[in-house]
């Protein structure tokens, strides 16, 4: 489904985001990527939908080679690859329904979306997406009137409205409280199971990663340093990814001890 062969990403400033990544992700997998901040998790995810162009190697999504230089091809790719973000990225001043309909943009003619005149079947799809995340009663509310967890579920509905083959989630629960975070991840997990959508999630929380993932990928310095089924992602294995103890931050520094 998604295949990285020796993919490098070098940012314009010269920073190397990914180093020789080789990775194959099968259809319907629920993959969680772990690693410290700056390890290249976001870069990996954003390479898949072309938000970050890769600079060498080859990346295929579905049957198509991702071509960061072709605007049209990238747009077609993005229409089948949905993405949700840490900060939800909803347009807070428009209604929940209109936010979800942004997911239909790629298959809507320009004049229709300019006037906000979506086809009936697009609206139906948007409503079904909202129903799937249990938030359809808020369809006509302004997005700003929703709580964080609700906003993230609207973002999931927007992605579902794209009818995607892949869902990318970049730290989707990092700004949510734990119970809400679990609810959002449960939604993603359920959608992954029910619709067979390949799902790739960046997470900081190990317990959450273990609870929801089929497969865990560990990253450090832009490289994939761990890749295995969730059962193999033991504390020892993750400490190896982090190159430090999981509780390192808890230990009191020498100078402060008395």
């Amino acid at each position, binding site marked *: 489904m998604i295949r990285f062969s020796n993919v490098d990403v070098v940012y314009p400033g010269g920073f190397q985001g990914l180093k020789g990544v080789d990775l194959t992700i099968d259809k319907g997998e629920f993959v969680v990527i772990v690693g410290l901040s700056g390890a290249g998790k976001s870069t990996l995810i954003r390479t898949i939908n072309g*938000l970050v162009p890769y600079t060498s190697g080859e990346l295929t999504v579905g049957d198509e080679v991702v071509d960061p230089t072709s605007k049209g091809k990238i*747009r077609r*790719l*993005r*229409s089948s*690859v*949905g*993405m949700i*973000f840490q*900060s939800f*990225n*909803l*347009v807070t*001043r*428009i209604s929940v329904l*209109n936010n979800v309909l*942004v*997911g239909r*943009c*790629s298959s*809507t003619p*320009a004049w229709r*979306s*300019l006037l*906000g005149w979506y086809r009936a079947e697009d609206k139906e*799809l948007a409503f*079904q*997406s909202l*129903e*799937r*995340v*249990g938030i359809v009663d*808020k369809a006509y*509310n*302004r997005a*700003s*009137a*929703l*709580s964080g*967890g*609700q906003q993230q*579920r609207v*973002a999931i509905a*927007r*992605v*579902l409205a*794209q*009818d995607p083959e892949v869902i990318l989630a970049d730290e989707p629960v990092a700004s949510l409280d734990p119970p*809400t975070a679990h*609810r959002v991840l*449960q*939604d993603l997990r*359920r959608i992954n199971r*029910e*619709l067979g959508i390949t799902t790739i999630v960046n997470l900081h929380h190990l317990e959450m990663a273990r609870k929801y993932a089929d497969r865990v990928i560990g990253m450090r310095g832009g490289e994939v340093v761990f890749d295995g089924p969730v059962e193999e992602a033991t504390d020892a294995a993750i400490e190896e990814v982090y190159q430090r103890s999981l509780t390192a931050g*808890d230990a*009191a520094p020498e100078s*402060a*001890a*008395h």
Partner: protein
Amino acid sequence: MSDSSSKTPQNPPTPGGESQPTTGQYKPDMLDARPVKPSKLGYNIALLVLGIVFIAAISATGADWGRLVQLPGNMVNYFTLMGQGVAQPLTAEVQQHWLSAFDNMLESVQIAWIGTVVGALFSLPMGFLAARNMTPLPLYVVVRFILSVIRAVPEIVFAIAIMLPIFGLGPLAGALALGISSIGTLSKLISEAIEGVDQGPLESARASGATQVQMIRWAVLPQIMPEVIAIWLYRFEVNIRASAILGVLGAGGIGSLLSALFGVRAWDRIGITLVVIVVVTIIIDQISAWIRHRVIHGAPKKEARAARERDDSDGVGVPPAGAHPI
């Protein structure tokens, strides 16, 4: 962890009787680790330069401040005449004066309104072209340059140099002159609003395959529209004053009336006209300011907050059992 939790906050035994009884770990030599206060030299120099420029500007105007104190005697005389004009009993003739002042003021407001609408129509697309995050660099530079030229030229010059040969000097010329000159400032302010837009919604729209036009429509416009409307309204307020001045040059409206009255030194009617100008301008300013406030800050703030608090307590995402697969 365990020893820190057993520590009691009050009354810890501090060996040596140091001046910080509450924190056991405190050591005076930690002072060395404190950062040095950042220099404010640049800020202070800027303040000083500003002060010098201000004083220099005052002295450069060469105004004779002494004369400000001794108001010319005839000025008092004129004000008295104007006051008498405003206070005189409403005979049919005086009523006529008030009505004609009001009619002319309405014409000025109309001129200002047409000018604002013209400016508003063009300023939105121009604002996008002048926003660095929406437009390729070469086009951006060109548009910015055109806009700054427009802003540098006073309305009066537009009215005389461009509109006069085409339309003759009248209300239409005045309105169009105001319109062009509005485009300059409005586009600049709108482009700044666009540049300050939250990038998050743009990124999510881009990630779902939206085109540039769709991103503008659904991610940028909803964010900037309240600010844009406020900017337009504010320009309307400015244009009302500007149209009165253009009128003095013959572009119609209250300014034309005023200059005619000055010609015949009809101080009583000048007083009436000035009162009409001030009252109408204040009323429109107040209404416009109220609308701007509503648009920017949103109307029912209390309700929105209450709704959010209500939602936070439930918000459980149980999907309906029979949800269709999509």
